[in-house]
C-alpha cells in the first residue's frame, strides 16, 4: 500500500506525520523522502546511509557540422529550450524537460544527447525502516524525474510512505500519482485552508482516496473543519498545538519516542487509512 503525505501549504507537518507514522505501525515500512528540494526526514530518523545513485537526464547538444538550421527541433520544443539562429543553435539546459522530441525530429542526426545531472538518490535504513531520499542539485529545477527514480524502488510487499513536497505542481503530482491514499496534512489557519483546497482539487483530479490530518489543532479557527464537513473529507487525526511537540520537533526528535501515547494514535491513523483504501475511498 502506498500512502502519499501531502499538504498544499508548506510547513504544516508532512515530515512529522510521515516519519512518526512510519515508526509507529507494525507492518514493514519503506519511507521515501520525495521533498527533493529540501529533504529533511533524515534529520529526525538519523538513518545509516548507503548506496548513492545519480539522476541523469538527456539534454540536446547540436552538431553544427550536420545542422541545416531547419528549426524542427525548436518547433517541437514546448519549453523553448532551443533557439535556432542563422548560423548558431543555442540550447538551454534548465528549460529542457528531456522529452526527447528534438532527438526524434532532427532529419540530419544533428541533435546529440548530452547528459545533465539533476540530483541524486540515497538509500539507507533506520530502526527497521527502509529509507530512500532524493536530493536535487543546487541550481536545478526539475524535480519529477528524481521523485520517479525514488519511487522506482517501491516494494509492493511493504507499506510505502511518501513524504511529498508542498504545493500542487508537477513535483507534487509525481509524488501522489498512483498512490493508494493521499493523506493531507493541514493547519487550521486561513493559509492552511487556502492551500488545502487547492490540494483537495488536485487529489480529486487524480482520483485518489484521501483524508485529513489537522496539525496544530486549537490554533486559528474552525474553517478547516467546516470545509471538511462540506466536502465530506474525513478528519483522521488531530495533533494539538502543543509546546511540547514543538520542542521535540525543534530538537530533531520523534514525537512517538518522547510522547509514547502518540504511537497508538498513529497506529489508529494507519488503521483508518487502511479501511478507507479497502472500501475504495471516500471521494473516488
Amino acid at each position, binding site marked *: 500500500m502506498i500512502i502519499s503525505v501531502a499538504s498544499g501549504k508548506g510547513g504544516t507537518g508532512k515530515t512529522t506525520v510521515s516519519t512518526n507514522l512510519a515508526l509507529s505501525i507494525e507492518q514493514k515500512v519503506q519511507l521515501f523522502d520525495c521533498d527533493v528540494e529540501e529533504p529533511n526526514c533524515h534529520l529526525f530518523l538519523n538513518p545509516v546511509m548507503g548506496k548513492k545513485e545519480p539522476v541523469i537526464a538527456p539534454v540536446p547538444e547540436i552538431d553544427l557540422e550536420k545542422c541545416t538550421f531547419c528549426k524542427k527541433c525548436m518547433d517541437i520544443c514546448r519549453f523553448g529550450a532551443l*533557439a535556432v539562429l542563422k548560423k548558431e543553435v543555442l540550447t538551454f539546459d534548465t528549460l529542457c524537460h528531456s522529452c526527447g522530441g528534438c532527438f526524434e525530429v532532427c532529419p540530419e542526426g544533428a541533435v546529440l544527447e548530452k547528459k545533465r545531472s539533476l540530483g541524486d538518490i540515497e538509500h539507507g535504513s533506520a530502526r527497521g525502516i527502509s529509507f530512500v531520499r532524493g536530493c536535487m542539485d543546487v541550481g536545478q529545477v526539475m524535480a519529477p524525474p528524481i521523485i520517479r527514480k525514488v519511487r522506482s524502488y517501491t516494494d509492493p510487499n511493504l507499506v510505502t510512505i511518501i513524504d511529498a513536497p508542498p504545493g500542487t505542481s508537477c513535483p507534487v503530482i509525481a509524488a501522489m500519482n498512483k498512490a493508494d491514499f493521499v493523506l493531507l496534512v493541514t493547519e487550521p489557519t486561513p493559509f492552511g485552508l487556502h492551500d488545502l483546497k487547492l490540494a483537495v482539487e488536485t487529489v480529486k483530479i487524480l482520483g485518489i482516496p484521501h483524508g485529513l490530518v489537522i496539525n496544530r489543532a486549537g490554533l486559528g479557527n474552525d474553517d478547516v473543519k467546516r470545509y471538511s464537513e462540506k466536502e465530506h473529507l474525513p478528519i483522521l487525526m488531530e495533533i494539538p498545538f502543543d509546546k511540547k511537540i514543538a520542542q521535540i520537533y525543534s530538537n530533531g526528535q520523534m514525537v512517538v519516542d518522547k510522547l509514547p501515547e502518540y504511537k497508538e494514535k498513529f497506529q489508529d491513523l494507519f488503521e483508518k487509512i487502511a479501511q478507507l483504501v479497502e472500501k475504495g475511498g471516500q471521494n473516488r
Partner: protein
Amino acid sequence: MKVAVTSQGDTLDAQLDPRFGRAAYILIVDTETLEFEAFNNQENKDSFKGAGIQAATTVSDKDVEVLLTGFCGPNAFKTLEAAGVKVVNDQSGRVIDAVQKFKQGNVVFADDANKDGHW
C-alpha cells in the same frame, strides 16, 4: 537599418511594450523610410516557457540589427547576442519616439540582461 521595437499596438503611434518576450507586437521598422512590419506576438505572449528565446529568434529571422525594448531577460539577451542583435533597454513612450531617439544616437547599448529570468 532595420530595428525591432516591442509595442502594445500595431502602429508606430502605439505605446512601446516594456516586455520583450511577452510583448503584444514586435514592430520591425526601417529607420530610413519608417516603413514597418507589425509582427503579432500573441502565440509567444501566451507561451508556457521560453517566450524571450522565441521572440529573440523571431527578431533574428527578420534581419534586425537593433532591438528597442523595456526589459530583456537573461535567456533572451543570450540569444540576441548570439544572433548579433544589439539591445537597447529601458525604452518607453511611443514606438515612433523610441525610433527617433535611436536615430539621433541618443541610446546606450546593453551589455547584459536588465531583468531576472522567470521561473
